[in-house]
């Protein structure tokens, strides 16, 4: 306690060790958070970040771990989340805890509703929520229903909920994973504003740009241990990444270009209406060609229609108003099953919803799309199935105890690898990759980039959707920017710059797409 009064850490972990059975999830974490500091926590998936947060916030109660947690110099013994909240610590989790059927105000006050004569005082609740939202520059109506909000806006509501509690310490677990660039700006402003008012934050993010834009110090975790704590001003991305993976990565985007072959996928004048009766155009007049061995990147702001384009091509979104999509000169079929048979697969962005049967095993999921191959006449040849699965578990480096491990218990990166492995097992000619590296760690990202290279080397064509511009630029041979469901610009070679792409994404003349008249 040599530090001067006031510099005493608001939150401190000393030698935290947490076991699950015989497995050590944390093997000695030291961490301290100073008053009015933003402290970033970096590490690959499985490094122990989430376990650390759960331990700090009382989800893993006192007694289930070794070591000490201190707040303001006092040893804390949290038994529940309520205990840690009372002590002034709020956690904003990766997975949101909002009730979709209720309004923003009702969610912000959930469990703490102001009452008047025993009845919920809706007026006061709305007024106070409005005040809270406008104070922090969050552009959401207090009366809006959560179900009507985008995932980014929901994230901001979640943060507003925590702010209402006047916390001293805010822990943000991947808050920006689903936010648009504009929403990220709002988020960063909020966190900075909090800092200026003396609130400290622990900020966890895979996006190093934000970490460097925001934090005062960076602590790197690896394999459940603190590796190092760095002053942000005195380090750089390469150094942080090197500490995270334990080895330096020289090139973040190892794209190996190959020579494009014949045209595999040809889309001409495609216009697609939203599902539902109104026939409002979601995509208008989209045309492109995709060749063997080529990566065509699809960029755009959130809501530009990138995922919708991929999902429509795969037969699971919207109704075609006009245009054609051809795979090797034959019309792309209208159902996923037929698309897969023709050599077109989709790796979905939302792996929990569209990607995995979470309560089934790794093997079950891996072989689900390609099962025809080893079930002639319907009977599944288990020996062959297990053999094929093993090949993919090995080549994709899926870290699971064995093929019978339940998919839902794996980390996000490993789940993503199963989704990709499942698609590749069908031996596709064209792969639609929708945000293949969302929410996974640097090492796993690198492996997925290598995989894209391997695929194009074998002559597979890849359509790559990504929200991260560096990734899009680094991994694509050509880039198509979408803006409000239209093509905002098409780029290749030296035309590809962050500025040009962003300008195309925000293409001014086409911000108000009109429904097609034809």
């Amino acid at each position: 306690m040599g530090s001067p009064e006031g510099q005493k850490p608001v939150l401190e972990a000393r030698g935290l060790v947490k076991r699950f059975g015989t497995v050590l999830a944390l093997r000695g974490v030291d961490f301290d958070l100073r008053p009015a500091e933003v402290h970033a926590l970096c590490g690959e998936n499985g490094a122990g970040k989430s376990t650390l947060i759960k331990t700090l916030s009382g989800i893993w109660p006192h007694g289930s771990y070794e070591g000490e947690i201190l707040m303001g110099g006092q040893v804390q013994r949290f038994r529940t989340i309520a205990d840690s909240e009372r002590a002034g610590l709020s956690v904003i989790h990766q997975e949101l805890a909002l009730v979709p059927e209720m309004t923003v105000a009702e969610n912000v006050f959930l469990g703490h509703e102001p009452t008047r004569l025993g009845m919920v005082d809706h007026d006061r609740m709305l007024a106070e929520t409005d005040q809270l939202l406008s104070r922090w520059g969050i552009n959401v109506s207090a009366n809006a229903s959560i179900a009507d909000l985008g995932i980014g806006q929901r994230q901001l509501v979640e943060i507003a909920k925590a702010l209402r509690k006047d916390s001293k310490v805010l822990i943000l677990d991947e808050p920006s994973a689903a936010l648009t660039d504009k929403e990220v700006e709002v988020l960063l402003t909020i966190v900075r504003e909090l800092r200026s008012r003396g609130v400290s934050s622990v900020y966890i993010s895979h996006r190093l740009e934000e970490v460097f834009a925001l934090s005062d110090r960076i602590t790197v975790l690896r394999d459940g241990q603190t590796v190092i704590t760095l002053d942000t001003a005195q380090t750089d991305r390469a150094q942080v990444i090197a500490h995270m993976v334990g080895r330096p990565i020289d090139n973040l985007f190892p794209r190996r270009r190959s020579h494009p072959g014949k045209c595999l996928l040809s889309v001409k004048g495609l216009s697609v209406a939203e599902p539902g009766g109104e026939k409002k155009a979601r995509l208008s007049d989209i045309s492109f060609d995709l060749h063997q061995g080529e990566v065509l990147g699809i960029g755009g702001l959130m809501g530009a229609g990138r995922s919708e384009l991929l999902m429509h091509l795969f037969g699971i979104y919207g109704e075609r108003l006009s245009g054609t999509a051809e795979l090797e000169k034959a019309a792309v079929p209208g159902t996923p099953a037929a698309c897969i048979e023709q050599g077109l697969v989709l790796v979905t962005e939302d792996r929990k919803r569209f990607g995995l049967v979470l309560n089934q095993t790794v093997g079950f999921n891996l072989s689900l799309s390609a099962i025809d191959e080893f079930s002639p006449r319907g009977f599944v040849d288990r020996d062959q199935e297990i053999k094929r699965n093993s090949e993919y578990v090995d080549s994709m480096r899926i870290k699971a105890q064995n093929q019978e491990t339940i998919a839902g218990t794996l980390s996000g990166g490993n789940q993503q690898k199963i989704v990709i492995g499942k698609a590749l097992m069908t031996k596709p000619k064209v792969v639609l990759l929708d945000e293949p590296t969302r929410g996974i760690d640097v090492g796993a990202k690198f492996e997925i980039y290598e995989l894209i290279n391997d695929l194009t080397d074998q002559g597979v064509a890849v359509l790559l959707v990504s929200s991260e511009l560096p990734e899009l630029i680094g991994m694509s041979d050509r880039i198509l920017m979408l803006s409000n469901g239209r093509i905002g610009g098409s780029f290749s070679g030296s035309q590809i710059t962050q500025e040009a792409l962003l300008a195309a994404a925000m293409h001014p003349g086409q911000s108000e797409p009109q429904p097609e008249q034809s």
Partner: protein
Amino acid sequence: MTTQEPQAAKVSPPKQAKVNLRDFSMLIALVLISVVFSLMDPAFLSSRNLSQLAIELSATAVLSLGMLLIIVPGHIDLSVGSGLGLVGGLAAVLITGKGLSAPLALLVSALVSVALYAGMGAIIVKEKIPAFIITLGGLLVFKGVHWLVINNSTIPVVDGGEHNLYSILTTYYLPPTLGYAMAAVIIGLLGLAAFNELKKRKARKLEADSEGAFLSWFLSAQLLALFVLVLNQYRGLPLSLIVLGATAFVIHVLSQHFRFGRYLYAIGGNEEAALVSGVPTDKVVILAFAVMGVIVAISGFLQTAFAGASTTTTGALMELDAIAACVIGGTSLKGGRGTVVGVLFGALIMCVLLNGMTLLALSPEMKFIARGVVLTLAVWMDVRLSRSTARA
């Protein structure tokens, strides 16, 4: 919550033990119930009563196995009780009213049944109407049509004093030697299958619980041998039990070893993911309902033959017994979870309860209440156990 703790997945030994406890908990419950009944009335364990029980069990258990294929992909079928009444009644009318030969009558009724159920399945998936509603409609319509077909009377499955394929379903017993031979062959095959599976698992370096596998095999062998022994002291193995055994085998292989089965579990676990993975979800569900049509026909024939005639009450409320058997046997109504062995145990528990209570001459009121309580308790226990497993 556990998705972020890949480490937690490695703590499998206690989880394994819990699952086993859950499997054996049904056996324990069954033994307990049987002990109570046999103490209250020694006749419960008589070969005559067990033979009776076996025949009663057949129709319900066959139906429950069909229900498994509907519940695993997340649907439900409320129509099967009146459906099996209709199909059984139709066959009886074709034989005694229209003079068709028994095999032909059974075949025609079974085809009608398959068409009806495949049709319901098609409406459910194509028009996206919940199975609950469509099959509730089926329950009412089939009941009405059944009564029309039998003209609100009692139609025997065979003309007085004679025998045909229909009537012998629940009156024919296998000769004792054949029964023993079958039991021996089945025990041998089960052992061989278990041994092969173990060997393969070891070769694949997967967890191989040799003791558990041996214990399961040993227990089933004992039970089977004892059962055949007892039944042979009365009249031998009832034919209906052979029908049940064959159905169970087919459904097991279909659900565990066929692509169709995989798809059922995938749809029940996550329908959207299944669709995106290329599972022809509509076709699979329609096929499951078509198989249900076959099952409804089989259990309809068994149930009608058991009563000797089709009456307006044949099959009444059997859909609920079938659903209860599935749920007691660990099938999740949300879909994606359930096994043939579990459902067989569930059906056995329901039938033993009913048989024992009938033997004790309990009033119908009490029987309904007791069955309801058992169902609720079983589900409650299952929820508790699965919750504690999830926490571990």
